[in-house]
């Protein structure tokens, strides 16, 4: 597609349940990022995939968070045993080369009740 696609756009889940968030990057983009945007917290880096290199997971806040990228394309962010503090907008971005800029998806708004 022409842009970065994220699904679902909204997700309401009960505390303790697992959730999966999906990101379809722009075709051919080798770099893929996940960020979290919370009120009062700004944009927080979670994880970065670049080609076939090992991902940079340094931003994942706990071992309840994990992400994978299959075939160098689609990525799934999984949050296990969700907590209320996980409520946020989760943004995905992709890039061919950084100097051309990074394209962000519209995000998934996660609400944990």
């Amino acid at each position, binding site marked *: 597609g022409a842009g970065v696609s994220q699904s679902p756009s909204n997700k309401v889940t009960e505390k303790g349940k697992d959730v999966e968030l999906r990101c379809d990057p722009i075709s051919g983009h080798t770099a893929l990022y996940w960020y979290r945007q919370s009120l009062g917290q*700004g944009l927080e880096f979670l994880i*970065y995939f*670049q080609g076939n290199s090992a991902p940079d997971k340094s931003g994942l806040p706990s071992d309840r968070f994990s992400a994978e990228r299959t075939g160098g394309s689609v990525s799934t962010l999984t949050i296990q045993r969700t907590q209320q503090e996980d409520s946020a907008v989760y943004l995905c971005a992709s890039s061919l*080369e*950084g*100097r051309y800029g990074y394209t*962000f998806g519209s995000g998934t708004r996660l609400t944990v009740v």
Partner: protein
Amino acid sequence: AQSVTQLDSHVSVSEGTPVLLRCNYSSSYSPSLFWYVQHPNKGLQLLLKYTSAATLVKGINGFEAEFKKSETSFHLTKPSAHMSDAAEYFCVVTETAGGTSYGKLTFGQGTILTVHP
């Protein structure tokens, strides 16, 4: 390590007057710098980027920014504000090597721009 500081959390201007949103950065290597805009309940849109070419960068919607290495600044300006410019603006830094940006993006805390009629 890299970091970004946006010096104002809120800026308020009148329509038709100049806009200045300030950004200072810290980077161990040659930085690439970006400004993104986020309108309410919308995604992040790239306004402009600096990646070691011309230090004065022109972006969309009349915005521009100047990279000043000596001051470690990348302030965003626009000569005349429009009501549609009201949004949140983010300054972003990443590292550059060989003309290619790589690694994670580090965001500033954002500046909310309000435009009064």
